[in-house]
C-alpha cells in the first residue's frame, strides 16, 4: 500500500468510524428516551421511599457504623 493510499484509508476509517459512533449513540439516545417514557407510563416512578426507611431509628445508624467497623476489622484479621 502506498503512503497516500494508507492516509486515504485512515481518513476514510476516521470519517466512517466517528460518524458511525455518533449515529449509533444518537439512536441509543432516542431509544433510551423512548424506553424511559414507555416504562414511566407502564410503571409510574415510585415516590422516593427513603423517608420511610431512613429515620426508622437514628440509633440504628450509629450501631450500624460501629458494627461496620467491627466487622471490617474482624474480616481483616481473619483474612490471612
Amino acid at each position, binding site marked *: *500500500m502506498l*503512503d*497516500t493510499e*494508507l*492516509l486515504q*484509508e*485512515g*481518513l476514510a*476509517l*476516521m470519517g*466512517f*468510524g*466517528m460518524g*458511525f*459512533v*455518533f449515529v*449509533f*449513540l*444518537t*439512536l*441509543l*439516545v432516542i*431509544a*433510551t*428516551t423512548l*424506553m*424511559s417514557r414507555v*416504562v*414511566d407510563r*407502564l*410503571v409510574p*416512578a*415510585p415516590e*422516593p421511599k427513603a423517608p420511610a426507611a431512613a429515620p426508622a431509628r437514628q440509633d440504628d445508624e450509629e450501631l450500624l457504623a460501629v458494627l461496620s467497623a467491627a466487622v471490617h476489622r474482624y474480616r481483616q484479621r481473619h483474612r490471612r
Partner: protein
Amino acid sequence: MDKLLTLWYGSGLYNLGLGQVVMIVIGLLLLYLAIHKKFEPLLLVPIGFGGILANIPEAGLALSALDQAIEVARPAVLQELAAVMQVSLAGSDVEAWRTTLYGAAHDGLPPELVRAATDIAKGAGYSNGMLYQFYSVAIASGVAPLVIFMGVGAMTDFGPLLANPRTLFLGAAAQFGIFATLMGAVGLTALGVMDFSLNQAAAIGIIGGADGPTSIYVSSILAPELLGAIAVAAYAYMALVPLIQPPIMRALTSEKERAIAMSQLRPVSKLEKIVFPLVLLVLVALFLPDAAPLLGMFCFGNLMRECGVVERLSDTAQNALINIVTIFLGLSVGSKLVASQFLAVETLGIMGLGVVAFAIGTAAGILMAKLLNAVSKVPINPLIGSAGVSAVPMAARVSNKVGLEANPHNFLLMHAMGPNVAGVIGSAVAAGVMIKYLG
C-alpha cells in the same frame, strides 16, 4: 566438570541479553508505578511481573514449544524441524539456522506444517511455556477481556446516564481521540517516521478509548504483536488521567462555565435499569454485530446486576471470576513484553500517540459539552465532557474535582458518571467498527 559447565551455560547470567536486562528493569519500573504510585495496580502488578517472567533467559515462559525448540534445541533437532517445515538451512552457522526457522515459523507457515513441527519440538522434550499457555487460553481465544467486560458491566450503574441520556453524546465525542490517534499513527507512517499498518494504527487508536479490556480485545485481533505496548500504554495513561486532563479542561473552559450548576438528576426506576441493557443489546444486534461480543457481555453483566434475581451470579462476576481472570489476563499481557517485540521504536511511537489520544479525547468531550450547552436550554457543565473518555471512575472524579475548584458547592460526580459510562459504550462501538473493517 562437564555438568558444572552445563549449569553455567544454562544459567540466566550466561545467556542474559541486554534487551532482557532492559525489559526486566521495565518490569520492575511497572511494579514500582503500580505499587508505589498506585497506577492501576490490579492490572499493572500482574503485567509487570509477567513481563519479568517473560524475559527470564532460557526459561522460555512466553514461548510456544516450537519457538522454544527453535531458540535452544540442538542442531540435529533444528534439521528435523527444517525438514518438516520445508525450509533449507544454508551454511553451518547454527544461529543463522535459528533465524531462518523462526522467520519461516512466523510468516504464514501452513497450519498442518506448524502441527508437524510442533510434534517434533514436543518429541524433543520442549513444551509450551507457562505464560504462552495463559496467553492462548486467556487472550488469543478472546475470552478473558470479554469476561472482564462482563464483570465491569456487573459493576456499572447506568442510573446517571438514564437520568440524562444526552450525556451519551459526550461519550461519543470523546471517541474522537481514538480516530485522531489512528490518523496520527497513519501520518507517522506516511512521514516515514514509524511503520504501522492500518490494522496496527487502529489498535493503537483504541488506547484513546481508555478502556483496558477493549484495548486488549481489539489489539489481540488486529495487532497481537503490539499488544504488550498497547496494554501498558492504555493502563498507564488511565492512571495518569488526573494529571493529563485538568490542564486541558482549564484551557478550554472559562471560569464561569466551570462554575455552572447542574440540576439534580431525576430518580431512575428499577425497570428502566433492567430494560436498558436489552435496548442496547438490540441496537447492537441490528446495527453493529461486530461489537456483539464486547457489548453483549457488558450488557449481560449489567442485566445480571440490575435484574435482582441472580444476585449470586452477579456477585461472582464482580468478585471471584473477575479477579481470577484479571490475574491471568495480566500475566498473559506480560508475556507480550519480550525484549525482541517490545524494544522497538514503535513502542515509543505507541507511548507518544497514547498520551495524544487521551488529550484529544478529553478536548473533544469538553467541546461537545460546550456545544450541547449552546444549543440546549438545560445547563450542562462542560467539565463533565472530559469524563467521556471513560477511565471509569477516575475521569468522573477529575471532573468533580476541577468543578469544585471553580464552585465549591457544585458536585459534578454523579453528572459526570453519565458520560463516563457512555464512554465505555462509545469505545466498544468504535472497536466494533474497527473490527468490522479490518478484522
